């Protein structure tokens, strides 16, 4: 502080500028937007949900949430005004309030979440929590899958193998698609746009959706074909992620070396190989490791649709209702541990490679 004060003031001919005041007209416009939103929420409110404000001489009653929502909007605008936020940022803040109110009220989010504590004290939510926090480790380590002679830990191995196969195949195809999808490395605009469109279709179907589709195509859930359906689903899932993320990395690649490769008379494939691929290799390795992690997690979720691996066992145990809570807990805790280990491993590999 003293250091700043003791400095001789430099030529103070030019006055330091004040932070500019945002234009009032824009803020009034924002208030109009808030009022419009309020009018809309008032119009679409549920008649039964009202708030009485008995003020003695008069009883003010207003729909419960719209008024609070409106006051919140005004408060946000006032805060923005006093902190001299630019109108655009204030508009952003207002939009967050309006949209969170609109979306939340449509699914009765506040009403439902208020119920949660009462559910915790009674019913089987409590039993479930107790079960999850007292996992049955002996089940995980020594039991067999119900009705068979296969040990539970074998399911983990299958999950891991599914993830490895899916990662290798999915990332390789994803790399090729990313090359075709980015206008930087693709043959022409048309190819790039087409591949991007196909890729968004692949990505729009979730992994569980792909698993359901493949399980239905191939048939058979338990072993062999069940694992195949899961692997195919994971491959589609990985292609979507890698092609999207890596495509964007390729878009951002330094154009200089590409121009140099062009200037030597290299053709497109040679240019992609010698200039683009080395530049995006670190991203590719990093995304592949990330996708491997996702695959371990996703294969647990895929079990819900009846494919093989630890996910299948998890969904069987959840299906047993009140008898399976300790087992479910054991699987979930082990899943946390496995994902953590995979995360550490991939971090270590990334550090070694890059």
């Amino acid at each position, binding site marked *: 502080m003293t250091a700043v004060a003791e400095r001789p003031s430099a030529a103070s001919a030019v006055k330091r500028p004040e932070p500019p005041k945002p234009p009032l007209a824009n803020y009034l416009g924002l208030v109009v937007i808030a009022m419009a939103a309020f009018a809309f929420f008032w119009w679409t409110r549920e008649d039964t949900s009202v708030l009485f404000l008995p003020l003695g001489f008069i009883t003010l009653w207003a729909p419960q949430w719209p008024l609070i929502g409106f006051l919140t909007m005004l408060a946000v605008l006032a805060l923005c005004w006093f902190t001299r936020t630019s109108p655009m940022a204030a508009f952003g803040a207002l939009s967050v309030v309006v949209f969170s109110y609109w979306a939340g009220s449509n699914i009765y989010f506040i009403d439902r979440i208020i119920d949660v504590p009462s559910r915790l004290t009674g019913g089987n939510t409590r039993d479930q929590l107790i079960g999850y926090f007292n996992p049955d480790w002996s089940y995980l380590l020594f039991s067999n899958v119900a009705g068979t002679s296969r040990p539970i830990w074998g399911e983990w191995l299958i999950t891991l193998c599914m993830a490895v196969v899916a990662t290798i195949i999915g990332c390789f195809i994803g790399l090729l698609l990313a090359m075709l999808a980015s206008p930087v490395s693709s043959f022409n605009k048309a190819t790039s746009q087409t591949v991007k469109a196909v890729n968004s279709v692949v990505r729009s179907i979730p992994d569980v959706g792909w698993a359901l589709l493949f399980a239905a195509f191939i048939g058979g859930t338990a072993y062999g074909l069940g694992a195949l359906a899961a692997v195919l689903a994971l491959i589609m899932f990985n292609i979507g992620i890698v092609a999207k993320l890596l495509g964007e990395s390729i878009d951002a690649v330094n154009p200089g070396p590409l121009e140099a490769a062009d200037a030597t008379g290299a053709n497109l494939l040679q240019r992609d190989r*010698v200039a683009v691929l080395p530049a995006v290799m670190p991203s590719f390795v990093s995304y592949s490791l990330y996708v491997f992690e996702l695959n371990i997690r996703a294969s647990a979720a895929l079990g819900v649709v009846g494919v093989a691996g630890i996910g299948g066992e998890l969904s069987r145990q959840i299906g047993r209702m009140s008898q399976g809570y300790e087992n479910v807990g054991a699987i979930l805790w082990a899943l946390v541990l496995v994902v953590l280990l995979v995360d550490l491993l991939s971090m270590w590999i990334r550090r070694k490679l890059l």
Partner: protein
Amino acid sequence: MITFENVDVVYPNGFKGLDNINLNITKGEFVAIIGLSGAGKSTLIRAVNGLVPYTGGTLTVGETVVDPRNKSKLRKLRARVGMIFQQFNNVGRISVLNNVLIGRSAFTSTWRSLIGWYGAEDKEVAFQSLERVGIVDKAYNRASALSGGQQQRVAIARVLAQDPEVILADEPVASLDPPTARKVLGDLRRIQQDLGITCIVNMHHLDLARDYADRIIGMRAGKVVFDGPTGEAIDAVIEDVYQRSLTAEDIATVNVPVSLEDIPAEAEAEAVAAGEPDGNS
């Protein structure tokens, strides 16, 4: 060797990059192009190998008419015309040798490039190029680990690996410190004379152009405003190209201090004081 006949370049946004250029550059010439930023120096150079397509007139390299629309003919032309860039444009993550081998792309089949398996002759050419620029000992180092001057030498080696008839250089030494700039430009000049390569070089530094070039071309607003042997490029002519009087920086002599001890203390203080009014220049 290189002939411009009424060459125009109009960019898609309507900006006229080159305006009716007529030039004839003979084999083995070392031509420096000078001019302010935006004068069309880079456009002129890039028109030669089709990186910027020209929109009017005729541009010939050797016997070949440059046709920016015909991709395969353009690739054949580019194989004969090497290019060096201000930012070196090496691929940082691969070895120096592999960077030089990029120059062999036009002579290598696509599948060989894809699996990264270059033939013995290609490697021999690459090593000879590295020997010519004097960094053969760095062949297996990562390109990004090299200093600026070494990186530009890698770029020159990459171009030499093409066995080019013409070398285009777009501000080749603008990113280097003055002593290194002189060394790299000296190497380029020597190699160009040894191999009889035609060389077109863009430059900011008038003193470098005067010291190394056979011929100087001055450009302003897309037009050639001066064209003559280096001896004729007297200060008055250059002032006409630049449209301002020359400053001490433009005509700096060879006496560039190499280490800090060479700079006298007062001179340093003066430089600081002089630098203050227009600190951004």
